[in-house]
């Protein structure tokens, strides 16, 4: 366990996904041990979610008349900037009339990753006969195949030390193209799945390491360069964290 205490600023940065992943993992561990901080962290994260629920509809509202183009109103600047304004009107500024812009998602917005990963986990982990498309016995083939389909060099973490062996993997349709799912199970048959998809981040300077609970499925998820990862399992949070940490370290030696 790292001895460097977690600062208040780091707790906030954890909430906002603005911590480097390695440090975020340490914060996640800290939260396992400090209930009060974990409570605050959960509440702050909930605030962010609620802010989006409360106000995101404005991103899709029609732009009201008073914010439309100059010819409808005598904006003060028209008098002083007649030429520029003329140009704007001449060009139609048709866009001012367009309704329903949707702003591009902000960087770091990976809110849906845990959900799709949890759903994929819930669908395939109970599967008895066909849990995977390609079994662990063909691991080399599996990694080549999925790397090719995702257009990225994938690595399959080994979790034997954590008590989990690879079952295999499958290709899944993601919301932005192909995604991959690797399945593991422990000696008792308890399964965890690692979901990997190509992220749409244009600037991946910030990563996040976060926990989400989707019904019975717990998910730790993070971004790593071009790829988004989510480890899902129906187990307690600290067990999931232990394994997620190992996954992260193996992918970032």
């Amino acid at each position, binding site marked *: 366990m790292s001895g460097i*205490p*977690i*600062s*208040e*600023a780091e707790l*906030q*940065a954890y*909430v*906002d996904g*603005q911590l480097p992943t390695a440090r975020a993992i340490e914060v996640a561990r800290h939260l396992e041990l400090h209930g009060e901080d974990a409570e*605050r962290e959960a*509440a*702050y994260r909930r*605030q*962010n979610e*609620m*802010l*989006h*629920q*409360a*106000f*995101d*509809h*404005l*991103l*899709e*509202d029609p*732009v*009201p008349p*008073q*914010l439309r183009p100059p010819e409808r109103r005598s*904006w*003060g*600047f028209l008098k*002083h*900037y007649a*030429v*520029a*304004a003329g*140009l*704007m009107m001449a*060009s139609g*500024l048709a*866009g*001012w009339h367009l309704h329903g*812009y*949707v*702003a591009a998602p*902000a*960087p*770091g*917005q990976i809110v849906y990753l845990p959900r799709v990963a949890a759903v994929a986990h819930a669908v395939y982990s109970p599967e008895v006969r066909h849990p995977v498309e390609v079994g662990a016995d063909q691991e080399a083939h599996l990694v080549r195949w999925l790397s090719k389909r995702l257009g990225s060099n994938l690595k399959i973490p080994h979790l034997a030390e954590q008590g989990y062996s690879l079952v295999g993997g499958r290709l899944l349709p993601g919301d932005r193209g192909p995604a991959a799912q690797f399945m593991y199970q422990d000696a008792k048959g308890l399964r965890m799945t690692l979901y990997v998809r190509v992220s749409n981040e244009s600037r991946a300077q*910030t990563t996040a390491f976060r926990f989400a609970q989707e019904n019975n499925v717990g998910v730790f998820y993070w971004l790593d360069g071009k790829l988004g990862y989510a480890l899902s399992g129906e187990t307690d949070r600290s067990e999931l964290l232990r394994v997620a940490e190992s996954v992260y370290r193996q992918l970032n030696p």
Partner: protein
Amino acid sequence: MNRPASEEFAAQAMQFIPRLRRYARALTGDSSAADDLVQDALERALVKQALWREGTDLRAWLFTVMHNVFVNQVRSAVANRTVPMDDMMSELPQSQGTDRLEIRDLDAALRALPEEQRAVVLLVGLEQMTYDEAAKVLDVPIGTVMSRLSRGRERLRRLTQGLPEVSVLKVVK
């Protein structure tokens, strides 16, 4: 003064109107005050567009302009009008019961925050700016952003969860 740049500028600025409106609505707590704020900010941005440097982050620049307009409005207390709860409810999206109540509480609690804390909570939590971007928009050091964020969030938490307010938050640093 034949500047096709104006056209380009307006077209670029336009795409941020929905975001400016979202932030303004959350900040002022009132739809019409929000649109007035956005309108004033856009007018000001068009007048001051020569100050924007192409290639730099236009979103951040527009938010900076709007923030300055807002600060001036706060001085004249326009933006701090309170809204009857019914009006506010009617413009909230249709969510499930619990969430809807929670949203209402949050919106009301936002009003109880000092304007400077509210701005940081929204720029970071809603607009998802980096701390650095928020610091630039507000023209304060990043440490100030962090302390306002921390205090603002904790206060919101206490307000929405019915916990007693604390005057000093434990700061581990």
